[in-house]
């Protein structure tokens, strides 16, 4: 198998998440790492990195996905996540 694409250390945002990948005619589940990253110096954007463990995937080659967000987009995203988290909390007994 190929090595991981993303580095993983104590500064990685999540080193253990449940994830899945879906395509036409396939859907596979795997553990994943997810990291929020900004440049160390004068960051202009936020990068979200996601990598599913390639040992558990047959239909896609080993890879990591990246999404870049502006500061405003990141805030919108954070607000959405916050609202969603509140909704989940509200349904807990």
């Amino acid at each position, binding site marked *: 198998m190929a*090595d*991981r694409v993303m580095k*993983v*250390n*104590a500064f990685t945002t999540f080193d253990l998440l449940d994830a899945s990948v879906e395509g036409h005619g396939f859907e596979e589940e795997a*553990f994943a790492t997810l990291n929020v990253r900004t440049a*160390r110096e004068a960051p202009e954007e936020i990068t979200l990195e996601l990598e599913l463990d390639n*040992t558990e995937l047959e239909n896609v080659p080993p890879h990591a996905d990246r999404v870049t967000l502006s500061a405003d987009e990141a805030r919108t995203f954070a607000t959405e996540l916050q609202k969603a988290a509140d909704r989940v909390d509200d349904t807990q007994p």
Partner: protein
Amino acid sequence: MPSKVERWKDETYGMEVRDHLLQFAEEGWDAIPEDEHDAWFERFKWWGLYHQRKGQESYFMMRIGTPMGRMTPEQLRTVGEVAKKYATGPVENPEFGDAYADFTTRQSIQLHWINVEDIADIWDELESVGLSTIQACGDSWRNIVGSPVAGRDADELIDVWPVVQELHETFKGNDLYSNLPRKWKVAMTGDRRGSGQGDINDLAFEPAVKELEGEEVAGFNVNVGGGLSRKEPRFARDIDVFCRPENAADVAAGMSALFRDYGDREDRFNARIKFLVDEWGPEKIRSVLQEEYMDYELPTAGQGLRDEYDYNAGRSDSHGDYVGVHDQSDGQNFVGLYVTVGRMGAEDVIDLADLAEEYGSEMIGLTQRQNVIVGDIADEDLDDFLAEDLLDEHSPDPHPFMRGSIACTGTEYCSLSIVETKNRMVRYGRWLRDNVSLPEGVDDFHIHLSGCTASCAQPQIADISLRGMKTRKDGDAVEAFDIGLGGGLGENPTFADWVKMRVPADEVPGYIANLLDAFEQERESPEQSFRDFVAERDEDALAALAESEETSYEDPYLGNTKMTWYPYAEDTAMDASPAPTDGQGEPLPSDD
């Protein structure tokens, strides 16, 4: 734009950091402005001090650089005494006690729980015997690695010790090379073993011969741009340069100046010279070195000795380390002793220094496999030396599973690691020794355990590579390892093939047992090495070789040790930490 670290370095760096450190030592931990911690901690590295991780504020790791791991017994004793006096923390380590020294894969020494208030006294003690923490960390010439027994080894082409001393004296404390874009790791090998492990260094001098002006000259081929970190492992690339021993300092000066001037100072992740070699290619590195930094014509590469290399090479016909009794060129012997994951109790360090002196040894050597060598044991004293009590623990003939174990610092102290490492590797080694039979003919089996992708335990160059991860087991997040197989150096250096991800830490010994069972069943002959066995199989076959499983092995560190303030404390909760503390170890009031 230069990075933040570059700006801090522009303000204060190198030799001048010493005065600031001495000032902080006098005034105490609280004198380091809280909003400047990151900048100061970065600068302190140049003088060998790393701030320990979250939960251990005000405590430092101190690294002492010993060129080629070489020391006198007197120096070793001082290390032990300093460890005993200053390297004790609030809680004992259950395996190693309250004071110990770590021997590292780059032949340096690391002490933990150092208070800034003690720095001046520690430097006084170390420097009184010629030891130093200068440039042990930070963006400059690091400790030069190579064979500690150079000049004594009966199996060598060149005695590189005088050359390494020259490099050490030239490039330590030298303002011209004190602020490089990133660390600069140099290896020099003069033996036929390949013991410098130059392939994984920024600059490697490899032994070679070349006919120059009608004369056969013993010197070095020069390779550049090796390293394991950042998930981008590289072997040093051949730049087609031969170098006489007397020119080594010139070539080293040229290469480190080239790195100083052309390395990436905007992106630290891209700063190591391996990335410049990627970008330029070895030919351009050579031509820029020649045209801009050298005042003589560089000869092309000579004939290397690589086909003889056996150090950490995974060969079935020779041990890949210095453990055991070896012939010296002067008729005496050097004896390599096993040190459990490179960590030796302070009392043992002192006892070993006394013992070495008693037997007339003038040389102690730390190896890149985290072991220790005592040189100069006469034939007539050898039996007595081998019968000494200290060698029961630090054996010249350890079980292969113990002998082959290497581990990095891990969550005990390190900010990057995501798993516990050293104590776990000790427990793995013991369990494997007591429960798993090695296949016939296998005398060496290297397991390198690293806490994250930074690769400090050199996981990519081992029979079995363990790299820290997390997984879920019975609903709980537990520490785990990615597993690689079949890496090693030698004639044809190879990085491990990664074959399993997120194996729960308590199932790793079971995996290794099953793997060795499969190896024994399927290998073509008892002469086939594990590394060759791996090399002839594809990824799918390797992944299918063995499965992990629970066994009688018990893992006390399975939970998330990263979240503890210290993994072995009675109360491991972050808020139970006494840190930060003053120079006497008393907790200081915290702002939050």
